[in-house]
Structures are given as structure tokens and as C-alpha cells.
């Protein structure tokens, strides 16, 4: 099987899905899951070869002239991500089939999910920056469709739009970053980038490219201060939260950082930017989760925190940190997917996600409770789950961080304590504690709804129990892909007594103590949040959007003001400035004043025309203006006659007579001239007019003295009589050589005549 076929199959399925609901019903998920499951098995089968260090590449020509190809690059990192996306995706599809039972247009929902799956796999297997970008944007779009799935609800639409705008902004920045990144390499292929990463680091494009790419990655992975779209995205149905907004899509930013670490990483700037954003996000996310009561929002903020941890670890960049990042990524995807699916199950069974309104669920759904508790244990980082190994590695990495390791370690310690606190709170408050009155008796979720959570937890457990045989082969090549030359650390559940184990114990102890005093802690956190984090980020965001809309409205009003003369003025002023600059820089105009070729009668005609022009412009009477106009017309006729334009003169005379008659007829109905503009406006317009007139004058002088090419008229002169049998060449050109032009001209006149006729007719009708 080829990766392209897998992607095509998924895309095809996503198109097909909306039409299958009638035939497949709720079981559709089971059938749809076959394709991702097959893909999962295929990637699993690649693992032995990948672990021998092989990289699979395919390349399909797309836009070769721009260095853009549809190419695939599959290494350990791609395989790990693909396994997560397809494996969790298969369970999500089964889960969604039953979870969405009561929703309308379920088929479409499944289609969006599969579309997302295809684009996410596309991101992680792409071998070309532009291909990555295309799939990256597809994930944003499918995320938008999924968050806004309950489109009758305004908050769902708002959250979807917010997520789309933020990730879309990031996507745009990312494209810019990719283009800049590609410039020094002259190519967008990952293989080119990896073969000589020093090219970009020594280029002065490094800084802008890095900042833009980080903007893309940070928005996608919900880093502070862009984190707020993720809790907002919880408006989506639970399968979406479990899949996109915890396990996969939000990790796309992390993936990108990991993917480009060999190219962009290793510099001070990279290290500091990632560490600062990562550590802030890690702590802020955890802190904000304390005061939440909505189960999904709690999980969303803890996801934000986990994403911050991942960014921090990649930024730290030591061998331990990269190992920890990959293990934690796996850990987090497994437990967070489980928790979100369970959150959906709990909501389904009890009708609420508010943890204050939940309690005593253990006796109703013991099996589901055990599954969820195991996931929470993994989140708290308690053995024997894989979460424990992840947390140990993170502590190890943080304590060995190259700079500010005490600060990072303390922030990490607090974060982990909050995670322990949350795990205890969710476990004890939901499954034990005071039991509220449920509308209907909660029961165990059905097989399809528990299958996914169960398997993910079991995998997490097995990976934790047998890390060397199971977790190591999955992750070692991914680690080497992020940082070539680094080795995978042999994972162990038990490391012996050391600082890290002490920290772990301390974390758990602090979490337990915090849980004991939860009421004062939560009320204190609420007070602090009210005082310092009063402004909701999403509200600020929407206010910014509103201001932006007002601004654009004003801008449009300023530019599209609706006054014809100011549009014209803009054109004239800009054109004359540009032309005058050109004249200023160009060759000087050579004036040859030869009075011998200035016959006095013609000089008089020119003077007359100029005088008539001035009088037509300044005339206070319309009739004077019109008479002046006809003087100009006949003056020009004389010029035509004097310089051998006989046909022109004849036409001009006829046209002038017609024009004067017509103008007079119209003028009869129009009111007299009124002075509309003041002296200032007149002076301004006169200045603009003289600027334009001036450059046209220079143009004539230049054009008269520069014959660039042999005139084409020679042909007409030679063949006018021999081919068209006409002696008047101008006539022959019009009616013979360019007959079609003349036909077009006649058509134009006919249409104008029709227009004139209908306008006059129309007036009469209104008058009646």
C-alpha cells in the first residue's frame, strides 16, 4: 500500500460519508473505522524498517518550476504521529457513530471527521513545506466545520469562527515563514532542508522565517496568549474534543516544531522563545483549570498546559528533553483522548458536565469509572501508567535545562501538583462524594462508547509496564528524527531513589494536600482570577474583531467616498506625479524653434483655439461655452485641412454641427450655471489641470522627436491601389483593410443611438 492511496481513500470516504447514513445508520462508525485501522496496521508494519533508520520518500511532480512537489517523507516522527492519528481516529469513528445518534446530519459529521483525519495524516507525512501548509490549512478548515457543527447555537458559531480566525492567521504567517525558509535553500523539500540546515541559520532570513513559523505553530497549538480558542472549541461535540482538540490537531504545532527542529533549532533564539512561551502556557493553562467547573473546560485547560510543556521541552532541546517530549506526547494523547470520550459518556448518561452537579457515579458505571480513573492516574503521573514515566522524564529534563532550570523546575512542579489535584478532584468528585438527583438512572456506556477509552488506557498501561519492549521501539526513531545524533533513553518504570523520584513524591503529596483544602484554594484562585484575569481573552478577541470591522468600514468610506471628481483627482494627481518624476529624470527636451515653418495664419488659428478654450472653461453662460466649443472644433478642422487630413476635416465638420445641435437641444432643458465650488477648489483644480496639461505638452515634444520604428503605413500606401483598388488611402484603410473595425464602430454607434432613443422615450413615459 502506498501513502497516497491511503490519503485518497480517506478523502474519498469523507466525501462519501454524508450519503451513507441512510444505509448504515449508527453502525457507520464500525465500517468507516476499517480504513484508518488498515492504515494503522500498515504504519505498524513499517516500524521495523523505520527502526533500522530507513526513511520512505515518494515524490509526485506538482509545480516543479517553483520547487513545489507533492512529496512524502516518512520517518520515525511521521510514523508515531500517523499511528496516533489513525489509531485514535479509528476508535473515535466507532465512538462517534453512537455518540452522535440523536444529532441531525450525522453522516456529514462523520465526513468532516474523516476529512480531518486525512489532512492530519497529510501534515505528518508531507515531505514538502508547501504540501505541509496545504494539509495544515485543511485541518483548520475541518476543525472549523466540526466546532461549528451545532450551527444553530450562536456560541458554537462564535467559537468556530474564533478558532478559524486564530488558526487561519497562524496559517498565513506560516506560509510566509515557509516561503522565507525556502528562499535560501531554493527548494521546499524537507530532504533539501535536512541535508544542509546551516544554510538558513547563517542567512538573515532566519529571524523573520522563525518568527512567522512560530506564530503558525503557537496559534495552532494554543500557546499563551492564543490559548483561549481551545477552551472555546469545547462547544464541539465530545468526539471532536477528544480527537482534534486534545490528541491530534493541537499537536500539529508541536509536530511542526519537532519536524523543523533540525533546521531551525539549536539557536539561542529558538531556545529562549520556545522556553518562555512554553513555560508560560504550561503554568497559565494549569492555573486557569483550577477554577473551572465544566468537565470539558477543565480538560481543555489542562491540554493547554500539556501543549505548553511540549513546547518547553522541544525548546530545551537536551537529549532528555526531546525524549521526554516524545514520551509525553504519546502519554498525553492516550489519556486525554480517553478523558474526553469519558466526559462525553458522562454527559450522555447524566445530562450535565458540571462537576459540582456530578457525584457517586462509581456504583452506576464501575467499569467506565475504572477506565477513567486509570487515565486520570496517568495524567497525575502515578505508576504504573506511562504517565509516570513521562513525568519522570520531564522532571529529569527540566532539572537539566541549560538555563533558568530552577524557575522552570518550580513552574513544572506547580503544574504537576495542579494535575494531581485535578485528577483527584475529578476522580473523587465524579465517582464518589455526594450524589445529586439524576433525572434518569446513569448506566454503563455501551460497547462502542467505552471501546475507545478502554483500549487507549490499556495501551497506556502496557506501555508503562513494559516500556523497554513496547514504548521504546515506538518512539526511538521519532526522537532521532527531531534531533539527529541523539539517542533514545532506555525507558524504565523504576529508576531507583533520586532527586526526580523525590520530586514526584513531593508533587503527589502537594496535590493531595491541595485536594484536602480544595474549597479555600478554589475560592482564592477565583478571587485572584477575578482581580487579575478579569478580561476573558475571547471577549477581547471579539472586541478586536469588532474594532477591525469598524476600521475597515471607515477605510472603505474614506477611499470609496462616492465623489466622482475626487476619484478622478486621485488618478490625475498620481499619474502626473509619476510622469513628472520620469520627465525630471529623463533626457532634457530639445526645443527647436523654427519660425519659418510657422505660417502666420496657422499661428492665428492656434491662438484662436486657445482663446476659445479659455473662454469655454471660464464662461459663466452655457451658450457662450457652447459657441466657444464649436470655435475649437472648427479650428481643429482647419488644422486638419492644413496638414493634409482632408477626410478628417470633412468628418469633423459634420460631427461638430451635429454635436452643437444636440448640445443646444439638451441645454434647453438644463438649469443655468450655478457657482458650485469656491476659489480655493478652483485654484486646486487649475493646478492639477496644468500639471496634466504640462506633461502632455512634454509628451508631444518628446513624441514628435522620437520615431522609434518604421511606420506600418508603407504597406497601406503600397497596396491600397493594387489590392483594394482605391486611391484614397484613409478610406481604403477604413472600409477595406480594417473593415471589421469599422463594422464594430458602426455597431457602437447603433447601440449608442438605441440608448439615446430609449432614454428619451423613457422620459416621456414618466411625464405621462
Amino acid at each position, binding site marked *: 500500500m502506498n501513502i497516497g492511496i491511503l490519503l485518497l481513500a480517506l478523502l474519498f470516504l469523507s466525501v462519501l460519508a454524508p450519503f451513507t447514513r441512510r444505509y448504515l445508520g449508527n453502525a457507520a462508525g464500525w465500517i468507516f473505522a476499517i480504513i484508518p485501522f488498515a492504515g494503522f496496521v500498515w504504519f505498524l508494519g513499517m516500524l521495523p524498517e523505520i527502526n533500522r533508520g530507513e526513511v520512505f520518500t515518494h515524490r509526485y511532480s506538482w509545480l516543479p518550476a517553483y520547487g513545489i512537489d507533492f512529496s512524502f517523507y516518512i520517518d520515525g516522527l511521521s510514523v508515531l504521529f500517523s499511528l496516533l492519528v489513525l489509531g485514535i481516529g479509528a476508535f473515535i469513528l466507532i465512538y462517534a457513530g453512537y455518540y452522535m445518534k440523536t444529532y441531525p446530519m450525522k453522516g456529514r459529521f462523520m465526513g468532516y471527521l474523516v476529512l480531518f483525519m486525512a489532512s492530519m495524516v497529510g501534515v505528518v507525512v508531507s515531505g514538502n513545506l508547501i504540501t505541509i501548509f496545504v494539509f495544515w490549512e485543511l485541518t483548520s478548515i475541518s476543525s472549523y466545520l466540526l466546532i461549528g457543527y451545532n450551527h444553530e447555537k450562536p456560541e458554537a458559531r462564535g467559537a468556530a469562527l474564533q478558532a478559524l480566525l486564530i488558526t487561519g492567521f497562524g496559517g498565513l504567517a506560516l506560509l510566509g515563514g515557509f516561503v522565507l525558509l525556502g528562499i535560501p535553500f531554493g527548494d521546499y523539500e524537507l530532504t533539501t532542508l535536512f541535508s544542509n540546515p546551516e544554510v538558513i541559520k547563517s542567512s538573515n532570513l532566519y529571524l523573520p522565517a522563525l518568527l512567522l513559523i512560530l506564530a503558525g505553530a503557537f496559534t495552532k497549538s494554543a500557546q499563551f496568549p492564543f490559548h483561549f480558542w481551545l477552551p472555546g472549541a469545547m462547544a464541539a461535540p465530545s468526539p471532536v474534543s477528544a480527537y482534534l482538540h486534545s490528541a491530534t490537531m493541537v499537536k500539529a504545532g508541536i509536530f511542526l516544531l519537532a519536524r523543523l527542529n533540525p533546521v531551525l533549532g539549536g539557536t539561542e533564539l529558538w531556545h529562549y522563545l520556545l522556553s518562555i512561551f512554553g513555560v508560560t502556557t504550561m503554568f497559565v493553562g494549569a492555573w486557569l483549570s483550577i477554577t473551572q467547573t465544566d468537565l470539558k473546560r477543565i480538560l481543555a485547560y489542562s491540554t493547554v498546559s500539556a501543549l505548553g510543556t511540549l513546547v518547553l521541552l522541544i525548546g530545551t532541546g537536551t537529549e532528555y528533553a526531546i525524549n521526554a517530549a516524545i514520551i509525553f506526547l504519546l502519554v498525553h494523547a492516550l489519556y486525554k483522548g480517553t478523558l474526553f470520550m469519558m466526559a462525553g459518556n458522562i454527559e450522555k448518561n447524566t445530562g450535565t458536565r458540571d462537576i459540582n452537579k456530578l457525584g457517586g457515579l462509581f456504583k452506576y458505571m464501575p467499569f467506565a469509572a475504572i477506565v477513567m480513573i486509570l487515565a486520570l492516574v496517568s495524567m497525575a503521573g502515578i505508576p504504573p501508567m506511562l504517565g509516570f514515566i513521562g513525568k519522570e522524564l520531564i522532571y529529569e529534563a527540566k532539572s537539566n535545562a541549560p538555563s533558568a532550570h530552577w524557575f522552570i523546575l518550580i513552574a513544572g512542579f506547580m503544574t504537576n501538583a495542579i494535575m494531581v489535584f485535578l485528577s483527584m478532584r475529578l476522580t473523587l468528585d465524579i465517582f464518589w462524594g455526594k450524589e445529586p438527583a439524576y433525572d434518569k438512572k446513569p448506566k454503563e456506556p455501551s460497547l462502542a462508547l467505552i471501546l475507545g477509552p478502554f483500549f487507549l488506557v490499556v495501551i497506556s498501561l502496557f506501555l508503562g509496564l513494559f516500556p523497554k519492549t513496547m514504548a521504546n521501539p515506538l518512539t526511538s526513531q521519532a526522537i532521532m528524527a527531531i534531533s539527529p545524533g541523539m539517542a533514545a533513553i532506555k525507558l524504565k518504570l523504576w529508576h531507583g531513589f533520586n532527586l526526580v523520584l523525590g520530586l514526584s513524591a513531593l508533587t503527589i503529596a502537594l496535590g493531595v494536600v491541595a485536594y484536602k483544602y480544595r474549597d479555600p484554594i478554589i475560592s482564592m484562585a477565583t478571587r485572584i482570577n477575578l482581580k487579575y484575569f478579569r478580561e476573558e481573552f475571547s471577549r477581547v478577541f471579539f472586541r478586536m474583531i469588532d474594532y477591525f470591522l469598524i476600521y475597515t468600514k471607515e477605510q472603505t468610506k474614506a477611499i470609496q467616498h*462616492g465623489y466622482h*471628481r475626487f476619484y*478622478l483627482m486621485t488618478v*490625475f494627481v498620481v499619474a502626473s506625479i509619476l510622469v513628472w518624476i520620469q520627465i525630471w529624470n529623463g533626457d532634457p527636451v530639445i*526645443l*527647436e524653434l523654427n519660425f519659418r*515653418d510657422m505660417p502666420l495664419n496657422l499661428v492665428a488659428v*492656434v491662438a484662436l483655439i*486657445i482663446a476659445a*478654450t479659455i473662454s*469655454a*472653461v471660464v464662461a459663466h453662460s*452655457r451658450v457662450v461655452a457652447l459657441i466657444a*466649443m464649436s470655435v475649437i472644433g472648427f479650428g*481643429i478642422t482647419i*488644422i*486638419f485641412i492644413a*496638414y*493634409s*487630413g*482632408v*477626410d*478628417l476635416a470633412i*468628418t469633423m465638420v459634420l*460631427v461638430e454641427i451635429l454635436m452643437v445641435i*444636440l448640445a443646444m437641444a*439638451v441645454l434647453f*432643458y*438644463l438649469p443655468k*450655471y450655478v457657482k*458650485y465650488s469656491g476659489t480655493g477648489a478652483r485654484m486646486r*483644480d*487649475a493646478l*492639477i*489641470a496644468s500639471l496634466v*496639461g*504640462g506633461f*502632455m*505638452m512634454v509628451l*508631444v*515634444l518628446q513624441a*514628435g522627436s522620437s520615431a522609434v520604428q518604421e511606420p*506600418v*503605413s508603407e504597406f*497601406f*500606401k503600397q497596396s*491600397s491601389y493594387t489590392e483594394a483598388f482605391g486611391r*484614397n*488611402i*484613409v478610406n481604403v484603410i*477604413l472600409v477595406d483593410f*480594417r473593415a471589421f473595425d*469599422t463594422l464594430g*464602430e458602426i455597431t457602437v*454607434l447603433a447601440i*449608442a443611438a438605441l*440608448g*439615446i432613443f430609449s*432614454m428619451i422615450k*423613457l422620459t416621456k413615459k414618466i411625464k405621462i
Partner: protein
Amino acid sequence: MLFLFAILIGVLYGAAVYLLLRRNIFKLVLGLIFLGHATNLLLFVAGGLTRGFPSFLRDIPGEVEKMADPLPQALILTAIVISLGVTAFALVLVYRFYSVTKTVDLDELSENE
């Protein structure tokens, strides 16, 4: 003579621009007419100034070298006729504009919207 024509064409273009920037819609049409005149003359002058030798074939030896360039004249002829069409249409449009809006002030049109 070229120099004088340059001045003439410059003045005609200046007048056209000035009239196009006026608020009275009738002056706008006058501006269009000026624009047509100016451009016709520009083409005519750019085609070369030939005195007393129209482009007729009269079988005089060496006439082909001496006669005026027929191509610009053919173009101008087309332009004159087209500008007649445009001007006539514009004039009737002005008439129509006034009979509907009862004003010839273009600014009032923008403000009414």
C-alpha cells in the same frame, strides 16, 4: 509648429481635466469633448506634420515618400466618430439625469445615496 501644437494640446488637456473635476454634470460632458479633441490632435501631431500632400494616390512619381501618413488619420477618423457617439449619449444622459434628480450637481447625487 510642433512647439505651438504642443502648447495647444497641453492647453486642451488642461481644460479637459479642469472641466472633468467640476461638479456640474454638463461641464463634465464638456470635459469629455475636450479630452476627445486633445487626443485626436495628439495622434495627428504624433503621426507627423505634412503640408499639402493628402494620402491620395495620384500616380505622381515619388508621391509615396512625400504624402501624409494615412494610418493615424484612419485611427483619428474612427475616434472622432466614436466620440460623437459617446458625447451624444452623455448629453442625453445628462438630460435624463436632470429630469430625474432635478439637479445638475454631482455631489448631491453622492449625498443622496
